[in-house]
């Protein structure tokens, strides 16, 4: 008598520790092979877009901090303010622009460190988690010295930044960069040549280039699949046009390529930070005559920025009042989550965790 097999539907989450938030994955399994994956989102929906319609632009900054991607608060502030400043034609002083670029790159390193640590703990490397958070703590302390917050800063303002950095702060940044350059080598020593890590990541969860483009994957996920696109290069904002950096691109499209891209991005961020510190001019940090209750002219605009997760866009419609008429957020983690099903189909159930971690998902960014 032949043995009968049937598909098994497995619910992963929303309380699973490896889903990085409240994500529910409905995994269809045949034996140990993944047949289909359906991500179920919405558990962390906080209606940021709607709430922004009832807040003035400066009040929305704190909302963008929390309601969107909470691991990269400044990247969200930048996305919102880029839309506001472009529509309102607000000029930002040079020093503020350099400071913003510096802070955004610090934020990118911090965000990638959280990703590296938590992802490695998912696939069984506990040491990296502790090391990553040790370095992240230094970034958070730098942020705290300058902005007063540890995760949610509310530091950027329309037309500049809130406060100038304290005396000697840039020395601390340079000291961190010097230290961190060695730390990345340590992480690579733990992971890159590690045979267990290689088996878990190399050739796993391949996302072909064409699929990645069709599904709108951006950021490190897209770049690991061979899409040579970075908003910082393609549509430079702040001072990205004036600093030198490379955009790491890998053709493999597997989990290991995503890891390599993010590690290289951290190195490039350090390069940008060093240039920012060197070129930081003296002067004003905030444009004069930008009122607290800012009124934007009537119109609509779509701007995009490169958050640590990818292409973060804001579509903003203003009716001329002090509130936006409509805000639509194009969240990078949401689009990358689309690609998840394509990546996971056909792999073993143990790879689900490794693949899910590799797209660096933040559920707050997905649901908004």
């Amino acid at each position, binding site marked *: 008598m032949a043995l009968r097999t049937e598909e098994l539907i497995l619910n992963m989450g929303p309380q699973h520790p490896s889903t990085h938030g409240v994500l529910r994955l409905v995994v269809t399994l045949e034996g140990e092979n993944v047949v289909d994956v359906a991500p179920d989102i919405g558990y962390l929906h906080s209606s940021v877009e709607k709430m922004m319609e009832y*807040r*003035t632009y*400066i*009040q*929305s*900054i*704190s*909302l963008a*901090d*929390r309601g969107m991607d909470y691991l990269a608060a400044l990247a969200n502030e930048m996305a919102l303010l880029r839309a506001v400043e472009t529509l309102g034609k607000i000029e930002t002083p040079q020093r503020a622009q350099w400071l913003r670029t510096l802070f955004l790159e610090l934020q990118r390193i911090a965000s990638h460190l959280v990703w590296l640590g938590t992802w490695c703990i998912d696939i069984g490397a506990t040491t990296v988690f502790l090391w990553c958070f*040790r370095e992240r*703590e230094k970034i958070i*302390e730098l942020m*705290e*010295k*300058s*902005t*007063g*917050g540890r995760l*949610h800063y*509310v530091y950027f303002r329309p037309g500049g930044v*809130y*406060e100038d950095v*304290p005396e000697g702060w840039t020395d601390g940044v340079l000291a961190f960069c010097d230290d961190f350059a060695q730390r990345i080598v340590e992480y690579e020593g733990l992971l890159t040549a590690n045979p267990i890590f290689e088996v878990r990541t190399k050739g796993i969860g391949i996302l072909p280039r064409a699929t990645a483009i069709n599904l709108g994957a951006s950021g490190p996920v897209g770049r690991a699949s061979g899409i040579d696109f970075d908003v910082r290069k393609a549509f430079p904002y702040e001072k990205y046009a004036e600093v030198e950096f490379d955009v790491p691109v890998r053709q493999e499209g597997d989990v290991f390529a995503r890891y390599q891209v993010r590690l290289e991005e951290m190195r490039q961020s350090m390069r940008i930070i060093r240039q920012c510190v060197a070129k930081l001019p003296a002067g004003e940090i*905030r444009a004069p005559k930008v009122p*607290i209750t800012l009124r934007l002219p009537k119109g609509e605009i779509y701007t995009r920025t490169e958050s640590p997760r990818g292409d973060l866009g804001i579509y903003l419609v203003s009716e001329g009042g002090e509130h936006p008429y409509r805000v639509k957020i194009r969240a990078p983690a949401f689009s990358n989550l689309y690609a998840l099903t394509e990546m996971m189909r056909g792999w073993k159930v143990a790879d689900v965790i490794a693949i899910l971690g590799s797209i660096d998902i933040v559920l707050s960014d997905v649901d908004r």
Partner: protein
Amino acid sequence: MASLLDRVGTGLQALAHGLRLTFATLVGPKNTVMYPIKKVDVSPRWHGLLGLPIDPQTGNDLCIICFQCERVCPSRCIHIEAKGKGKDRLLTRFDIEMDKCQYCGLCVEVCPTEAIVFVPHYEASTYNRANLLYDLEDLHRSAPKEPIARGVIK
């Protein structure tokens, strides 16, 4: 055979390297703080609890009751009431619902007289939510002798 020896050699090398690191970390400086016993210092710009400093010359509040903080607060957690007119205006109520507060600092930023400041204190947890409603007296008590956060942008 040679490859097996190679792998054994690499393994032993890695083991020695790892153990050396372990013992070096054992005696090296610690990165963690034994929290409830020792506490971490916060920066002078810390977005912590809020306080209302009293003007040492007059003994009154620095607040000029302009309601700007109440209006700018994204969480609408500040409630101000006043009585009197002109120079005799007196603050009768200044409540901050600290459970709603998101520590964004907009109230500190807009205050024209630095009457509301951040206090470098971060332990506000309590067993009862009602304890998080800070009234005028609480805010006076928590205020530092000198303003520590700069509220006015130059």
